[in-house]
């Protein structure tokens, strides 16, 4: 059989975007972003060895507008991953496979991720 040099899966260029495919690819991208963020956080903890003066550089970054954006962004990537992972776990138990239910839970995961982002940030900052 002739070997074709096609991409294996999924064929992102030819798929029509819909909530299921959007959440599926976002879940993967967010998962990679999260592990990169956790890697950076590990280096952040290791940077504590360098002492208080070096820490000031990182602290200044976190206190900047960009630093806050990164922290809030991390709240969203964590929120989205948690909610969509729960959706996957329910599928694995045999619930929510119906197309209509699947679309509803997809929208809930997406909208819920933004609500959770706000909640995580406010609870983390002791606003409650």
């Amino acid at each position, binding site marked *: 059989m002739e070997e074709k040099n096609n991409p294996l899966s999924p064929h992102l260029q030819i798929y029509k975007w819909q909530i299921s495919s959007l959440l599926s690819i976002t879940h993967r991208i967010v998962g990679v972003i999260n592990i990169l963020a956790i890697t950076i956080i590990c280096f952040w903890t*290791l940077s504590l060895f360098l002492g208080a003066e070096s820490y000031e550089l990182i602290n200044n970054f*976190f206190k900047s507008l960009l630093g806050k954006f990164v922290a809030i962004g991390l*709240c969203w990537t964590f929120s989205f991953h948690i909610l969509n*992972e729960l959706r996957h776990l329910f599928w694995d138990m045999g619930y929510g496979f119906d197309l209509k239910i699947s679309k509803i839970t997809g929208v809930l995961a997406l909208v819920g991720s933004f609500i959770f982002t706000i909640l995580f940030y406010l609870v*983390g900052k002791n606003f409650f």
Partner: protein
Amino acid sequence: MHVSTKKWLITKISSFLLIPFMIWFILNFISIYENDYQTVVFFFTKQPTKILFLIFVVIAFFFSALTISEIFEDYIKDQKIKNVANKLLNIFAIIMPLITIIGIYNLS
């Protein structure tokens, strides 16, 4: 049990375990990320935050190694490149938590 079934089951168990640790970590990260050096050092060296953070890191890297290998399976055609990518991924998933554990335990 088939090796793929075992891998799927371990992936699902680790993802289930990771969820409460992710919630715990993000809430604590938001509460400390702007704090001064002493507060952050205290957070990573006191118990139970020290052990919880290390468990979170171990599960996160373990889970990521399992799931990123699925991405390699879907997108990398060449078997040799896929094997090398998986080996590098596994080494990274072992070394990073190990360095972090050693680092945190030597931080005082």
